[in-house]
C-alpha cells in the first residue's frame, strides 16, 4: 500500500544533541510537509517542500532544518534540541493542485521526540 513512513517512531535525545528524523513516501507526491504537534494541540507547520523548493514558516526556529534529497525522502534536523522541542513530529505529503492533485494531505504516524 502507498503510504508515508516515519522513522524512528520514538526518539530520545539529550539536551543539545543533534537529532535527525526521517520520512519517506511511496505516494510519489511532490509536496512534503513537516509539522510539530504538542500534546492536546493542533499540528503546527514548520516547513514544506514543493518539489525541491523549500518553504520555511516565518516562526519556525532556526534550530530546525530540513533536507529533501529526492522525491521520496525528507529529513528534519534539530540542531540543538531543547526541552521545549519535545513533541510529536508529523510528516505529510500531497500532490499539488497544478499536478492534478487535491488539497488532501496524507500524514505519517509521527515520531515522538523526547529530550532529556
Amino acid at each position, binding site marked *: 500500500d502507498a503510504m508515508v513512513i516515519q522513522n524512528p517512531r520514538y526518539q530520545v535525545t539529550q539536551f543539545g544533541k543533534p537529532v535527525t528524523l526521517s520520512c519517506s513516501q511511496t505516494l510519489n507526491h511532490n509536496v512534503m510537509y513537516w509539522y510539530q504537534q504538542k500534546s492536546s494541540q*493542533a499540528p503546527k507547520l514548520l516547513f514544506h517542500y514543493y518539489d525541491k523548493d523549500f518553504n520555511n514558516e516565518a516562526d519556525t526556529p532556526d534550530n530546525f532544518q530540513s533536507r529533501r534529497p529526492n522525491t521520496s525522502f525528507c529529513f528534519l534536523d534539530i540542531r540543538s534540541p531543547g526541552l521545549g522541542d519535545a513533541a510529536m513530529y508529523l510528516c505529510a505529503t*500531497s500532490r*499539488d493542485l497544478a499536478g492534478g492533485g487535491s488539497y488532501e494531505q*496524507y*500524514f505519517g504516524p509521527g515520531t515522538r521526540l523526547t529530550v532529556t
Partner: protein
Amino acid sequence: QQQVKQSPQSLIVQKGGISIINCAYENTAFDYFPWYQQFPGKGPALLIAIRPDVSEKKEGRFTISFNKSAKQFSLHIMDSQPGDSATYFCAATNNNAGNMLTFGGGTRLMVKP
C-alpha cells in the same frame, strides 16, 4: 484572518448519541474544509471534506454541515461508537494558500459505552 476556531475542546457522548463539533473561520477565501481524525499515537487522517458550493455532505455516519453566510461548518457523528473516540481537527485552505491547511484547535471526543 487565518484562524479557524473550533469548539468544544472536549466532548463526552454516550454510545448511540450524536456528536457535534463546530468550527468558525474568518477568511472568506477558504474553499476547502476538511475534517481530520487522530487516534492517540497516530497521525491525523482525512475523515471527510466539503467545498463551499454545497451545504451538506454525508459519508456513512459522518456529516459536514456548512453555512457560508455564517462562516461556520460542523461535523456531526451519528450513532457515535466507542471506536470514534479520538481527537478531531477541522481545517481550511484555499488555492492561494497552496495546500497549506489552517487547523482548528481540536476536539477530544470520548464515546462512553
